[in-house]
């Protein structure tokens, strides 16, 4: 073994993939990086940037039809790409381990967790079974899993998402590898669960002295986990350097925009009278009650942000307001008139006044219709426009959402995620609504694209005076748009009021927990959290 070589050295790596139509796509283009022992490097980029592919090559693996065209991936000076299958099997698990994004599907459903966690160590004869079990239990404790002695006896379906993600980290660490590749390990988790996982993982990495490649699309999160950062875009390196350097003095324009994307702030606006009022609303499906006794107000021309974690009932609230899910109790008042619970009984004017923009534009746009038809349908229904007049109106709406008029001829499949979401917004605007219910409209989008959509929504509100009920789990989006904020948990209101009041001390404890759990884009934020926790409650072994 070469003592002076860095732990991982990637040089001039080109990865390509064969497309289903026989063409070739470049996934990684001339990537180089160096990682020393015990160092953590963050790989950051939007979807399709190639960061997961890069992570997997550290284990000498690729997914679905990809292959390495040229370049080197050296572990301790030995090129993994030239060693053949035997070398790859030898280093996998033992020297380089992998933590997947979705631990729920990465564990074999047929076996108890402990048997999977110790599998590498036992099958590769690195430890005896008893030693490996002891080691796993230590790791469970270190990763703050509940009752570490018995936790491993669970089957994967018996543990929560946050627990599985930590168990997967324990599985990677068990054989004491030199390097662990974390592939978006917390992306699927709620913020309050995410913070627990990253705290535990960060501590464990430090104590075990392992190196890491930490892949994420969240720059603020990576800044807490990594010593160095590599920014990728479209398979190319945009910028690399120490975390401090990249965060505080970025050189590439793209990195600067990524950092700025987190900093949209909404200026306080004068108060306006209410447009929509909810009083004592209760709703649910079958015997299950989702929302209980909810009171909310959306003012005219302003934004009410409804914030909560998964299962808080915030999306159900959107359906209730649109009349898709009739409420069981309470009342809805809109511009002084009463709204029927069931959309079928609402007059057409009420349907026109309230429009909706959904989370996933792929489900919200009919893939078989052209954009012109999609935006034209509400124009015909609500404005009575036909033929050439409708085409002109469609073009005008496309311009409002910053798309070219030619888009009218395209189908959704030919658009990017951000463009699709803009078409959804244009469709909502076509009705000339007074209220748009935005249900997690930015959560399926990459940060910069989401940023663009948020700016668009702010501009449209300023120009047209439309109100938003903005449902989200993302405090960045709240800060960018909200005049008022309502925090929901388990179907009930935890806190509500003007944004300044709800989002600043004195907080409601749950609001505070939510806000504190969102990683901030500054060095040492996580250390601050750890320090603060050390002085507070000692027990946080849950979730």
């Amino acid at each position: 073994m070469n003592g002076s070589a860095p732990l991982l050295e990637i040089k001039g790596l080109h990865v390509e993939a064969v497309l289903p139509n026989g063409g070739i796509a470049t996934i990684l283009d001339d990537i180089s990086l160096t990682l020393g022992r015990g160092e953590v490097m963050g790989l950051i980029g939007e979807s399709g940037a190639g960061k997961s592919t890069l992570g997997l090559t550290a284990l000498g693996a690729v997914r679905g039809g990809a292959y390495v065209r040229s370049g080197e991936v050296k572990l301790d000076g030995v090129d993994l790409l030239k060693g053949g299958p035997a070398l790859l099997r030898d280093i996998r698990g033992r020297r380089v381990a992998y933590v997947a994004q979705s631990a729920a599907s990465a564990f074999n459903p047929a076996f108890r967790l402990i048997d999977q966690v110790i599998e590498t160590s036992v099958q590769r004869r690195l430890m005896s079974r008893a030693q490996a079990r002891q080691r796993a239990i230590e790791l469970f404790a270190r990763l703050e899993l509940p009752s570490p002695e018995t936790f491993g006896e669970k089957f994967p379906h018996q543990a929560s998402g946050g627990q599985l993600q930590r168990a997967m980290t324990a599985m990677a660490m068990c054989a004491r590898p030199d390097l662990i590749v974390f592939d978006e390990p917390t992306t699927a988790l709620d913020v309050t669960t995410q913070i627990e996982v990253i705290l535990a993982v960060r501590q464990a990495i430090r104590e075990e002295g392992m190196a890491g490649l930490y892949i994420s699309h969240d720059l603020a999160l990576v800044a807490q986990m990594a010593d160095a950062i590599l920014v990728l875009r479209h398979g190319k390196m945009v910028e690399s350097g120490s975390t401090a350097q990249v965060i505080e003095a970025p050189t590439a324009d793209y990195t600067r925009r990524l950092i700025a994307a987190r900093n949209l702030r909404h200026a306080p606006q004068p108060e306006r009278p209410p447009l929509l009022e909810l009083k004592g609303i209760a709703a649910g499906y079958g015997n299950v009650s989702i929302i209980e006794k909810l009171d909310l107000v959306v003012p005219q021309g302003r934004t009410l942000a409804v914030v909560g974690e998964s299962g808080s009932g915030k999306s159900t609230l959107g359906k209730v307001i649109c009349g898709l899910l009739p409420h069981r109790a309470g009342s809805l008042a809109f511009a002084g008139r009463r709204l029927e619970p069931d959309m079928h009984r609402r007059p057409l004017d009420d349907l026109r006044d309230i429009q909706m923009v959904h989370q996933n534009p792929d489900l919200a746009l009919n893939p078989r219709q052209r954009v012109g038809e999609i935006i034209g349908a509400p124009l015909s229904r609500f404005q009575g426009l036909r033929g050439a007049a409708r085409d002109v109106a469609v073009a005008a709406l496309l311009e409002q959402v910053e798309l070219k008029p030619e888009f009218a001829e395209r189908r959704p499949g030919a658009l990017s995620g951000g463009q699709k979401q803009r078409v959804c917004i244009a469709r909502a605007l076509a009705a000339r609504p007074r209220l748009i219910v935005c249900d997690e409209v930015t959560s399926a989008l990459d940060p910069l694209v989401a940023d663009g959509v948020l700016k668009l929504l702010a501009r449209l509100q300023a120009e047209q005076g439309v109100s938003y009920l903005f449902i989200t789990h993302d405090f960045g989006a709240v800060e960018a748009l909200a005049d008022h904020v309502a925090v929901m948990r388990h179907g009930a209101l935890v806190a509500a009021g003007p944004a300044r009041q709800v989002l600043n001390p004195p907080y409601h404890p749950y609001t505070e927990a939510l806000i504190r759990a969102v990683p901030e884009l500054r060095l040492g934020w996580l250390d601050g959290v750890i320090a603060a926790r050390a002085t507070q409650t000692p027990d946080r072994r849950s979730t």
Partner: protein
Amino acid sequence: MSLTDATSRPAAPSRLSGVPVMLAALFCLACLVCALGADWIAPYGEADLVAMPWQAPDLAHPLGTDQLGRDMLSRIIFGARTSIGLSLAIVTLAFMVGGAFGLAAVTLGGWADAVISRVVDLFMALPPLVLALLALSVSGTSLVTLTLVAAFIASLRVFRLTRALGVDIAARDFVDVARLRRDSTARIMWREILPNAAIPLISEFGLRFVFAFLFVASLSFLGLGVQPPTADWGGMVRENVGALNYGRLTPLVPAAFIALLAISVNLIGDYVVARRGGAR
């Protein structure tokens, strides 16, 4: 998402080669032309006795003659009309009935959906051939019964598919959007749901056609389907079985046509699905 070693270069993706599909399409086309123009194309009449029984193929009778001395080629051409026509009628009927009930179950929901679905479950829990044999023993062997029974059996699967597709598509947000602007149910079906169900429904039509076609052939072969002297491929196999004892392969000729048509339709179906991959 299959994982491979980065060192191994993947093979080029497999694609359905166009040549077999072209041949399959040509064969289907030829069968259709024969079915439509049997009266003009066939060299002899459907029931004309033109030579000795089970004659070997020659220029006058390229496929030989059958057990009564009728021209096999002409019988195959007329048989195409019966076999394909009957199968198309069955599948069309099945799609009308199964599709209508499927859409009704989706739109009505609740009780209506539960009742229709349970009844379909009951009939699908029974072997189709047993159902058909029961119906034929009750009403005797007639073309009408045969068509109705086969259509009923096929409609069960069409119902399930239509309902599943409908439920899946109706749950997508763009259907909510259409409902929220008060588009009529008919308009939502026609403009929002149907275009998205088209590809799976078309491929199901192909599958159901093959199934109905083989089903009718089997029943005719059992002597319970199309009755003589009408030419029908399954029945022709049965009629000519005796030829085997004289070393003639006559019954294999209609059997081969049955197999070729079924394979061709399947090939085309697979090709359409592969071309529009992931349309579902």
